[in-house]
């Protein structure tokens, strides 16, 4: 495995012209790069989003484990609703801004950010504070309001066979998933896997055809290279949009992991649920997308 990995890295570095060969290998690289730390999951609490992220990513072996010089990075926060950051309906803008900064420091050629919001996209990008944060950090805010930005792909899911996926997910070298943890009226909670509903064009199909199964199916097509779950402010009821700030609890926490199922499993406990209650976590676990059993994972817990 190590050979394969080295070969892949060497291949990309050596011959840029040999696109066809190296591209296949590039696709494999992120999950095969051996982590210098042995942790499957890092949980942090007690700090500001920026501080928590730095601690967590250091425990994972540093940003350079995920982002190499010259790579194109896509960061996918949750920018679903036309609500201000205090309402905790969208990912913390400070965190998004900080991740972009760290990606650029690691040498990323370009960091793009997008979501396909439920509310009007122009208003949501603005009100969430994320558009401004991205601009400040030097990232590129990309629209997802038209079908032409999405390409149809095959997905080997149980229910989900095809989906129109945003081109940034298809064209980027590194995919960082940055959901916010919150309550959800029907899927009980929103985490990493649920956040990926924002990279497809037609969400109604998912809602119509066994929502949990579709959520669990999508990562079969593409798993993020890193999941950063923002639990700084957490919406405990009336999710996913929330009614007011009264629904929000300051938790100053964060979970990061390469394993999308493990990340969600830990996050569900943070919001007071058992992962076995969340159908899509169980489904994803059963189809070997990741591990929901946290006792089998090496977890680093950091208190600030």
């Amino acid at each position, binding site marked *: 495995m190590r050979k394969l990995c080295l070969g892949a890295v060497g291949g990309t570095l050596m011959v840029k012209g040999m696109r066809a060969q190296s591209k296949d290998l590039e696709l494999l690289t992120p999950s095969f790069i051996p982590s210098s730390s042995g942790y499957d999951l890092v*949980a942090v*609490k*007690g700090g500001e989003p920026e501080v928590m992220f730095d601690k967590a990513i250091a425990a994972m072996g540093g940003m350079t484990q995920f982002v190499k010089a010259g790579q194109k990075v896509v960061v996918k926060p949750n920018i679903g609703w*036309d609500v201000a950051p205090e309402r905790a309906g969208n990912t913390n803008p400070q965190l998004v801004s900080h991740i972009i900064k760290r990606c650029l420091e690691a040498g990323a050629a*370009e960091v793009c950010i997008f979501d396909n919001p*439920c*509310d*009007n996209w*122009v*208003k949501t990008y603005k*009100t969430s504070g994320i558009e401004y944060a991205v601009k400040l950090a030097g990232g*590129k*805010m*990309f*629209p997802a*309001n*038209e079908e032409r930005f999405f390409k149809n792909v095959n997905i080997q899911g149980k229910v989900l066979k095809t989906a129109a996926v945003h081109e940034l997910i298809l064209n980027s070298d590194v995919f960082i998933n940055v959901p916010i943890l919150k309550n*959800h*009226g*029907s*899927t009980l909670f929103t985490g990493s896997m649920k956040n990926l509903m924002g990279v497809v064009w037609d*969400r*109604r*199909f998912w*809602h*119509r*055809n*066994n*929502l*949990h*199964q579709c959520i669990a199916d999508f990562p079969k097509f593409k798993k993020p290279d890193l999941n950063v779950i923002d639990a700084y402010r957490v919406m*405990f*009821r*009336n999710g*996913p*949009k929330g*009614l*007011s*700030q*009264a*629904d*929000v*609890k*300051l*938790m*100053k*926490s964060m979970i990061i992991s390469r394993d999308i199922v493990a990340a969600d*499993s*830990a996050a569900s*406990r*943070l919001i*007071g649920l058992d992962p076995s*209650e969340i*159908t899509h976590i169980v489904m994803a676990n059963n189809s070997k997308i990741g591990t929901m059993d*946290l006792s089998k994972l090496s*977890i680093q*817990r950091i208190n600030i």
Partner: protein
Amino acid sequence: MKVSHRLSIFRIVVAILSFTLITLAFFDYVSKLSFHHFRTILFLQFVPSLLQFIQSPSIITAGFILVILLTLLFGRVYCSWICPLGILQDGLCKLKPHKRKRRNRYQYYQTNKWLKYSILILTFVSILLGSTILLRFIDPYSLYGKMTYQLGSPVVVGVNNLAFDILQQMGNYSLKPLPYPSFNLSAFVFSIGFLGILIFLVFWRGRVYCTEWCPVGTLLGLVSKFSIFKLRVSESDCTACGLCARNCKAGCIDTKLKTIDFERCVACFNCLRTCSAHAIIFTHHQSKIGESNLYHPDIQRRRILGMMITATAGLGLKSAMAQANIGTKAMLPNPKPYPVTPPGSLSLEHFNKTCTACHLCINACPTQVLQPAMLQFGLIGLFQPYLDFHKNFCNYDCVRCGEVCPTGAIKRLNSDDKKLVQIGQAHFFRENCVVYTEETACGACSEHCPTKAVHMVSYKAGLTIPEVNQNICVGCGACEYASPALPNKAIYVAANPIHFQALAPEKSTKIQEEIPEEFPF
């Protein structure tokens, strides 16, 4: 430079300025302009101002009075200086293919008084009867608006999106791609048809629409009979060369009789410039020039004008009485036949009485939930904006339509008040719901609900199903838009023909703030 030249240039500058501002207001897709910008830009538009004045008389709605005063001074300056449709026609004039070398060959023609006075009276009667249906087809500002939305927007959006694509290739993300306005057959056919007719008329005889059909033009024409300054022909100086008549877009100069039908004159003042004998003078109507048979006090016309003024006053009174009655009328039981009208439009009755379908709100609506109606709500609702929840839903915090509306059909609301205006009520059909039919999780409707009027309650094992609390529903249509059920929605909003006040969403106590001591895993 001759004074007449300067006047002409001044007129063109003012016309281009007002035309550009109005057009820009229509293309303000990124909501850069404020309520005050819209009020200022559209202040002088006659019909919107008149309709708004009837509802709430004040200085800021008194633009039409200023127009009447201007007309009393100088004649129908509105038609060539302020009216976007008039200025558009002047622009179209320039496109007229010229046979031989003589430019703008127009000629004097007899006016059809029966037709234009009938249109004017019918328009007033229809407003009195509580419908703007005629205005929607004949008010120049609204016609211009409809054409701008139907024919202009796709072009502007296309250019913007092309520019976005090019800039994006260069790594510049400063522009935002805009959604194309959705195609609406009846409004499109009407707009393109009307533009065709307009071009034909302009090429044929110039401003025929303005002098023969336009109710605003006819009304101002009647007022201009009493103008202090008028264009007049000095019989002694006039050589009857006919040059002025050939350049008169309104066809109102009769060179044989050496008279100007000032009632039809659109005050472009081109004749002043073209007359080489300086026989046309813009002057005080009583000052002595040659011999002129221009000014005949016409008793019949005075009577019509008097009638209009009385009618306007009567209308104001009627509306004041109606407002006192609002909310006491019984609501009709069957909610289906009514369109959902924008928050701030008070009631279907108020909306039908005041909206001239200029489509400014449709252009300004950030979510594009506002769409022109075809025949869904009968002829009476033709072209009226309504909320089409299959296109999108009304943003909870947005009050844009009320900010831009120039006629007062959509009242300006502040964001907090708007959140309590109930424009309709959600109705849930369990039998259509995915949770019921498929027994899988969904909740798309509840997710989108801004007040949690639509909330999820326990259903079978591990499942939740929507329930509606209509008291706190605002009728924004988010649930209807989001519902994935096919072919019919599992939840839909039935319009309130009279808007109600919704109860505020229940205030729940703040969740206890405490950072957990230990990780729960």
